[in-house]
Structures are given as structure tokens and as C-alpha cells.
């Protein structure tokens, strides 16, 4: 063994970490019981290995609508622990009254609503080009696409989204998918368009986040960046990748936010967040400030923190609310927006100046039907979709500029979400549980939204 081999041996022993847990005899017994024959494994407790663990009842990565397995409980209260904000929200989707101009109810098949908004009848799939009956802001279906709710993103003259199996680029003019690349998102975090590159989180486990960069036109992979995490990655991650005005990527990586230069893949700054794994991150439009959330599963609280990058990552604010989940931060000139709860009952809030204690007037119940509803910033307005109303708001003050009701389709949930802009036009993801129509809708928002 020469010096080089000795150094390698020493380094392997020094750097290789201790395992997070040990294998037990019970684990092996379970595996042997599995091998002995079907039907026996259910009697043994499952091993703790991820690959063989029984699936836990937890929120799917992209909201209940992406995998509607469970119906949620009936009512819960979101209370601001530190600030005293309290919002009563029901998880049942409350069907809105039939809208004017909706389909002729006498000719529709009889249906009834369910708590999840699942259809109990059928209706013809809406054809491409049709105006969506009763839809807000002249919504017109321009393409049939089954996207993951909350994944629609605009940038570089195109629209992007996840289908579950692919990352796709949609031509907003024709509404057609013009490029696609196999991709399965491991975490709730929509694509981020930075310059001529579309960035996605391709792996979010084992103490590292792997980002992939795709050419915005061809969807050819052009970059791959591995971001090491500190501590455990959040299991409640919602929006862990953001682009800053400085041209850098901001990645939630366990107990820190890593600032990554996309040109060379190097981490240029790290902001430590000692309060638990970061579940969401957003960057102020003028830079210099980041907002992060950390979800505490045991106490069921969501903590919002503000950090000043110009002061070396110093925490400048923190507030906490009781919630069963949330995140999906969007920073605007007046503060930060985010979500509480899950797709079964979701609210969007606005924290002026990053202070959740001031959020109570701005909490808006948006969810129902299991659809993940993310606030989006587009065309200098803040957009909030959902199953109840489509709203545009002043990003600086949070005041509502315009709002339109989303009608229930004969008691079944309709969803408009993720409003984005491309080439000066507004688009939204649309889903109708009754007719099983999913696709891209073109919108004509009122002038108040475009100011």
C-alpha cells in the first residue's frame, strides 16, 4: 500500500458519515417473511427502509388533485400563534351558485357534489377553442393538457409545465405542446425560467438537491448542478427553487438557502436557517432580501422568516402561524405571499413587509377539490386562482384589483390556477371535474388587473 492508497483509505474513513440508523434483525425477519410468500408480509411491521416502507398517508407532491386518495377532515382553524390572526376555513368545497351564462341545467346529466368535488356524472369534454361556459374573464380553452396543478410557468415567450411524466413547453399561440422531455418532479416546485434556461428540481433527497437546466426553446439539458444540503431536506417542501433579480438561483437545501450561480454551478452564498428545514423560498424583486418558510410537522406550525442578504444573511424577522402545511412563497414589492393548508382547504395570504402578523386582512380562502393553488406574479400583478374565484391583486399593497367567481360545473369542481403571461397574453391552467377536461385557458383579464 503506497502513500496515495493510504491517503485514500484515510479519507474514505474520515469523510464517510455514520449511518442515520442501523439495520435490525427485525428488518431482516420482515424481509425473509416477504420472501416466504405473499400474504404474510402484512403481519410483520414494515422495515424502516424507504424502499420497502408502507406508504404513509401524506399529501401528494403536487396536491390532492394529482392523486386524489383521501378526503380531508371537515373544518380547521388557522390561527396566528404569534400574531393572533385567525381564519376559519372549511375543507369542503362549497359549490358556487350557477353562474349566468352557464350551461343549460335542464339538459345536463343529473349530478351531485361531493366533498372533494369529484364528479358523480359526466359531461362532454370541452373542445379546443371553445369558450368555457361561465368561466371567468372570457376564458377560452386553447389546448387539452393534463398538467400538475401549480406547475404552469411562463417565460421566454413560452409556457412550461409538468405533466407528471414530462417537462413540456407549450406554444402560447397555438396552445400545443411543442417540446417535451421526460421528467418527473420529486417535489412541489414549479419550473423556473431564468434567461434562456428552464430550471427544475430533479432530485430532492439524500442531503442534496439536484437542479437541471434545460434550453428554454429545445428543452435540451444544458446544465446539472448538485447543491449539498445541511441537515434534513424538508418533507413538506413547496416551492424550493426561486430565481433572483441578480440572476442567481435560490435553493432551499435543508437548514439553509444556497445561492447558486447558474452559469458555473457554484454556490456563491449560503444563508443558514436554524429553525428547521426550509420548505419554501422567495427572493424580493429588488434583491437583498429572501423569505423562507419552515414547516414544523410536530407542532403543525409554519414559520416565515426574512433574511437580509446584504447584511450577510442576518435574520430580520420571524413570525409563526398554526397550519397543516403551506409555503409556495412569492415575493413582491410590498412583501411576500404564500399559502396555508393543503389543496383540500387552502388559503393564500399576503404578509406586508414579510410580517405575517399583518397578514390577517389578506388571507383569502381559495382551495377545495384538492387542487394546489399557488399565487403567481405576472404582468405586474399578483394572481390567485383556485376553485372559488380568480383574483388579481396589487402586489405592493395586497388590495384586490378585480375578481371573478369560478362557477361549480353542476356541483363538480372547476379550477383555474397558475395565471401566467406570455407574449402579452394571460393564460391559466383549467380543470373541470365533471367533463374531465384539463387544459390551458386563455384569459382576458379586466383593465384593472393590467393597470
Amino acid at each position: 500500500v503506497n502513500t496515495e492508497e493510504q491517503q485514500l483509505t484515510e479519507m474514505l474513513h474520515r469523510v464517510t458519515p455514520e449511518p442515520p440508523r442501523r439495520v435490525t434483525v427485525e428488518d431482516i425477519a420482515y424481509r425473509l417473511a416477504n420472501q416466504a410468500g405473499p400474504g404474510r408480509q402484512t403481519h410483520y411491521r414494515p422495515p424502516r427502509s424507504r424502499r420497502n416502507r408502507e406508504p404513509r398517508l401524506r399529501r401528494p407532491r403536487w396536491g390532492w388533485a394529482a392523486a386524489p386518495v383521501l378526503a380531508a377532515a371537515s373544518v380547521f382553524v388557522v390561527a396566528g400563534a404569534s400574531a393572533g390572526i385567525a381564519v376559519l376555513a372549511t375543507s369542503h368545497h362549497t359549490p358556487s351558485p350557477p353562474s349566468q351564462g352557464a350551461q343549460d341545467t335542464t339538459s345536463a346529466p343529473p349530478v351531485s357534489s361531493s366533498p372533494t368535488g369529484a364528479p358523480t356524472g359526466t359531461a362532454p369534454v370541452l373542445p379546443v377553442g371553445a369558450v368555457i361556459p361561465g368561466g371567468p374573464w372570457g376564458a377560452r380553452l386553447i389546448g387539452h393538457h393534463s398538467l400538475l396543478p401549480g406547475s404552469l410557468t411562463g417565460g421566454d415567450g413560452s409556457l412550461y409545465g409538468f405533466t407528471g411524466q414530462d417537462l413540456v413547453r407549450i406554444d402560447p399561440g397555438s396552445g400545443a405542446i411543442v417540446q417535451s422531455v421526460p421528467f418527473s418532479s420529486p417535489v412541489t416546485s414549479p419550473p423556473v425560467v431564468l434567461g434562456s434556461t428552464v430550471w427544475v428540481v430533479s432530485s430532492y433527497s439524500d442531503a442534496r438537491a439536484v437542479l437541471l437546466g434545460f434550453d428554454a426553446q429545445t428543452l435540451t439539458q444544458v446544465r446539472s448542478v448538485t447543491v449539498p444540503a445541511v441537515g434534513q431536506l424538508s418533507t413538506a417542501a413547496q416551492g424550493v427553487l426561486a430565481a433572483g433579480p441578480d440572476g442567481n438561483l435560490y435553493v432551499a437545501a435543508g437548514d439553509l438557502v444556497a445561492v447558486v450561480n447558474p452559469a458555473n454551478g457554484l454556490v456563491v452564498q449560503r444563508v443558514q436557517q436554524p429553525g428547521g428545514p426550509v420548505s419554501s423560498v422567495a427572493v424580493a424583486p429588488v434583491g437583498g432580501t429572501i423569505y423562507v418558510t419552515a414547516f414544523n410537522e410536530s407542532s403543525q406550525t409554519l414559520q416565515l422568516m426574512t433574511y437580509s442578504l446584504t447584511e450577510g444573511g442576518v435574520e430580520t424577522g420571524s413570525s409563526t402561524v398554526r397550519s397543516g402545511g403551506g409555503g409556495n412563497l412569492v415575493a413582491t414589492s410590498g412583501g411576500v405571499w404564500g399559502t396555508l393548508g393543503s389543496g383540500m382547504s387552502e388559503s393564500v395570504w399576503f404578509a406586508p413587509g414579510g410580517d405575517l402578523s399583518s397578514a390577517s386582512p389578506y388571507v383569502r380562502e381559495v382551495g377545495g377539490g384538492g387542487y394546489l393553488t399557488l399565487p403567481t406574479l405576472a404582468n405586474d400583478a399578483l394572481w390567485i386562482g383556485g376553485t372559488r374565484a380568480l383574483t388579481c391583486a396589487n402586489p405592493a399593497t395586497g388590495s384586490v384589483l378585480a375578481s371573478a367567481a369560478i362557477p361549480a360545473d353542476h356541483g363538480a369542481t372547476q379550477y383555474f390556477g397558475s395565471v401566467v403571461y406570455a407574449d402579452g397574453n394571460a393564460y391559466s391552467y383549467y380543470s373541470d371535474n365533471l367533463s374531465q377536461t384539463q387544459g390551458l385557458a386563455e384569459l382576458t383579464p379586466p383593465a384593472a388587473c393590467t393597470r
Partner: protein
Amino acid sequence: LVDTLTGVDRPAEPDGFRAFVEARSPALLRSGWLLTGDWAIAEDLVQTALAAAWPRWDSLRRQDAPEVYVRKIMINTYLRWRQRRWNGEIATGRLPEMAAYGDVFAQIDARQALLAALDRLPARQRAVVVLRYFADQTESQTAAAMGCSVGAVKSHAAKALARLRDVPGLAELMTGGVTS
């Protein structure tokens, strides 16, 4: 034996098996992590090997070779899984940033750099590195575990060292002071 909680029979636990698992599973898991770069898959690998050893345990103990057998199963399973391209890992174009050692992130960086370097090795070269230089197996033991000749082990080791020599930043890691 009857499981007292479930009432379902399960294979009798051989003598000495529990002590072996408790004593050696950390080292086996660390080897598995070096092979796969993923704790969950490493755990799967170790469990697979131990499950294979369980029915033969008495015989292995008589031969005083339980760990050799378990490592052999681990390596063969790892190589078989790699052939199936089970992990779908995406090789990154560059090593993660190497932060100045001594800061709080240095351990994380070092682990990532090590895994990125090992990712560059073909499966058999990686297995030789883990067995020879981490598990401290002799060349003949490594050859036995991998089912190849001692000459092949030497060849794999030499090629692996040459590849690792070309990895930017690894020399610094090998002479650095970062601990896990």
C-alpha cells in the same frame, strides 16, 4: 418461533446473528453508502445481504466467514443492480463547490465531493475501492468477494486510482482535515 405480537411464525433466529447485525451493520451500511451514495439504497443492500446470510448462518459461523459472505452478497447485488441501471442517477458535470475547510459546510461538501468522485468510476472499480480501501480487505479477499482474480483486482484498483487522481479537488480532500 412465533412472533409474540402478530402470532405469525417466522424463521428461527440463528445464534450469534443478532450480535453480528448489531456490531457490523454500521460498517456495512457505510460501505453501502460509498457504493450507492444513498442511505436508503445502502440499507436495502445490507438487508438483502443479511437476509441471504440468515438461512446459512450456522454454516458460515463454522467457517468463520459470515462477514466475507455478507460483503460478497452485497457486492454482487450492487453490481447486478448497477447492470439494471436501477438508480437512474444523473451524473453531474462538475464537483460541488469546495468550501474552505473548517466552516460548518465543509463536511457536507466533502461528502458530496467524495460521492461525485466515486460516481465517475465504473461499478467494479468502485467496488474494489470500497472493499480494498474502506473495508480494508486484502486483494485476495476482494477477489473472492467479487468473484474475480487477484490480478483483476489489481487492475481495477490501479485504474480507479488513476481516474480519481484526475478528479479536481480530490487531492485536496485526501490531504485535508475534514471529518465526518
